[in-house]
């Protein structure tokens, strides 16, 4: 309104700034151009090195890129630095996506179009069956790489990453033998034993006993605390100790008819109904805060979970946690590293992951990061038997987890495990904490899953 009365001053003023604007635009264009040129220069440097023309004289290093998800811990354990020291002409860069649910669709997309792939791609155990079945042609056969020795790995871990005709698309990194982490102080306040042997005996052999322990806990529990962190955590723990869960050994989907799945669902729903589990979803900000505030007494605990707890808990909680054997041993998590054929530095990447997944490195990774080795020869190494975690004080966690690794069942995994699992937890048992009945929750979960599986 005001400007309408003074058109001349307006024009003049804009004319005065035109010069400065031009300068700004020019500067911006120059900066962008320089950036692009720099980018190109970097690239060509890389390519030169991959042709083997590099003399390792500080210039033209080969950069191996890794596509990872979550916290895999290689960098944190100092393994990149170590490898770079051993191979001065190699540089390692990782590209991490926080959640596998976001990482995996992108990976599949890149694999089917054969573009945008890193030199090394991580694959989660929940997806390995699908990748092996549908994308094997896009990966190098790791079993043929020199230095890779099949006998280093647990048999089942090796075979999970191998196709029917014997092509190994991924080398195993860690596994997730599952135990139960518990808060000694909260157990004591509720009148439960705190010694790890005695705690293990409370529920030995039966997940139902675990839930009854929860009922006992609730009677005298410290106000505001829960026996377990989340319904998703509980059903996952129970299911991971089954030999068959969603698929049978012939590859048929049996999740709806498998009594073990229904039993796990109902038991979790019962615990949720009685208020033994908190209405949380794992790995969400609120769940993190719950750990920091010491609001729950137990959590299903593969070794890597100790790393999570360490990351989220307050420093003053150090030593208040301990690890007991689970009612039945299971496996939760674990990954594979594969080398896509379309990568820029295939040979270098193969050599790198061969080194990275060798028993010595797996042991180091466990010592620093808590990712449990899939190489059984490490189970007697000092790094494993003597491992300690700040949160669990002096507890010999390595021995507990080794025991679980040896007794965990070799589970049948199927291509759509992740979708089924997510439907059961995120669209199923969580609803019971919202006041839905177990039957309603099961209904929602199965409807969601069937819709998601239907091609």
């Amino acid at each position, binding site marked *: *309104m*005001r*400007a*309408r009365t003074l058109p001349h001053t307006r024009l003049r003023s804009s004319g005065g700034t035109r010069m400065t604007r031009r300068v700004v635009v020019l500067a911006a264009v120059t900066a962008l151009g320089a950036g692009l040129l720099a980018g190109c220069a970097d690239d060509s440097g890389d390519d030169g090195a991959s042709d083997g023309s590099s003399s390792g004289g500080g210039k033209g290093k080969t950069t191996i890129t890794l596509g990872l998800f979550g916290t895999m811990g290689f960098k944190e354990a100092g393994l990149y630095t170590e490898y770079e020291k051993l191979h001065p002409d190699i540089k390692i860069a990782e590209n991490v996506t926080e*959640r596998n*649910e*976001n990482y995996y*669709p992108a990976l*599949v*997309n890149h694999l*089917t*179009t054969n573009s945008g792939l890193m030199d090394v791609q991580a694959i989660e155990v929940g997806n390995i069956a*699908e990748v092996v079945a*549908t*994308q094997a042609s896009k990966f190098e056969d790791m079993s043929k790489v020199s230095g890779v020795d099949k006998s280093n790995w647990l048999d089942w871990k090796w075979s999970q990453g191998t196709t029917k005709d014997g092509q190994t698309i991924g080398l195993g990194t860690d596994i997730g033998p599952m135990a139960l982490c518990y808060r000694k102080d909260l157990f004591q306040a509720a009148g439960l034993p705190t010694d790890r042997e005695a705690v293990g005996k409370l529920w030995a052999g039966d997940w139902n006993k675990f839930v009854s322990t929860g009922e006992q806990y609730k009677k005298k529990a410290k106000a505001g605390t829960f026996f377990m962190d989340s319904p998703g955590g509980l059903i996952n723990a129970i299911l991971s100790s089954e030999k068959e869960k969603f698929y049978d050994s012939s590859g048929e989907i049996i999740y709806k008819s498998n009594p073990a799945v229904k039993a796990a669902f109902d038991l979790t729903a019962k615990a949720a109904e009685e208020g033994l589990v908190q*209405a949380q*979803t*794992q*790995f*969400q*900000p*609120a769940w993190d*805060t*719950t750990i920091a505030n010491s609001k729950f007494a137990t959590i299903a605990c593969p070794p890597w979970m100790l790393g999570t707890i360490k990351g989220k808990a307050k420093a003053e909680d150090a030593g208040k946690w301990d690890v007991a054997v689970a009612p039945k041993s299971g496996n939760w998590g674990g990954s594979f590293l594969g080398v896509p054929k379309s990568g820029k530095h295939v040979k270098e990447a193969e050599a790198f992951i061969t080194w990275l997944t060798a028993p010595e490195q797996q042991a180091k990774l466990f010592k620093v990061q808590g990712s449990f080795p899939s190489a059984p020869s490490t189970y007697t190494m000092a790094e494993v038997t003597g491992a300690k975690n700040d949160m669990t004080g002096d507890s010999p966690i390595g021995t507990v987890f080794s025991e679980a690794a040896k007794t965990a069942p070799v589970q049948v995994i199927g291509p759509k495990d992740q*979708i089924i699992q*997510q439907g059961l937890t*995120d*669209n199923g048992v*969580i*609803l019971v904490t*919202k006041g839905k009945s177990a039957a309603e929750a099961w209904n*929602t979960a199965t*409807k*969601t899953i069937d*819709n*998601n*599986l*239907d*091609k």
Partner: protein
Amino acid sequence: MATRHDTAAPPVKEGGAAPGRPPAEPTEAEQRHRARLSRRWQRDKRWSPYAFVSPFFLLFLAFGLFPLVYTGWASLHQVEMTAPTDMTWVGMRNYTRIFDDDFFWNAAKNTLTIGIISTVPQLLMAMGLAHILNYKLRASTFYRVAMLAPYATSIAAASLVFVLLFGRDYGMINWALHFVGIDAIDWQNDKWPSQFAVSSIVIWRWTGYNALIYLAAMQAIPQDLYESAALDGASRWKQFLHVTLPSLRPTILFTVVVSTIGASQVFGEPLLFDANKGASGGAEHQFQTLGLYLYEQGWVNQHLGRASAIAWTMFLILIVIGIVNYVISRRLRASS
């Protein structure tokens, strides 16, 4: 820059290109050369414009038309993302099953309700803000820039902050509500609270943007209309009702159309609002929009054929919305 007539060349007259040289009879070679030049010039004149506009159309063909047609083709097949070239013809099956797909209709309903609770208050607030900013204010440029700041924020960043604010156990909003005696609301898991929370992200982001559009339109309303209204004794409110609103009618229509299209495509806000449940839009799909459902089928479940059918259905719905908007706007124009 303005043309200065004292320095610019005078308009060229017939034969004015080569003054001074006597008109000589051109040789045969020269004539041929001239004819060739002239033909080239003709061709140039004829085809160059097409070359100049071609970049857009080539890009449109590659990134607009081809995907559209290909999606249509894929929607008639059963095809998985793990093997996009392996297609099985299923005819209209992907479309017919949408009719009994509860999840699709649930998503459509959510898109509609989220669209309404985000668009209506958003436009009303934008109108109010624009009206206030239209007054003579100290530091008005600051307010105008500040209004656009949410729009410049990335959806991801905004959504993540809103997730923290709307947390059930440790969120700031529930903490504030508890002081006025309201129990903790589970913003993520209850139907209406979650839809409201998602809408609030949309509202926060777009209100300022729409307010600036209204403001621009308000500034174009002739001042004398207000002056004569004031002379007639109209209050500020009456002026707003009888001068501002009628003058803004085309602008309002424009923002309604743009917001409606935006609302039918809401995606990022609900996707990030419950990062864990991701594309399923909450435990009971209570805030799953059509965009999310499309993404869930295509990228999470990897059913490209189904996702393509959903995409085309959404496209058709948008066309219907467009036609409805067109009819309404024609009616409005005819009545005014």
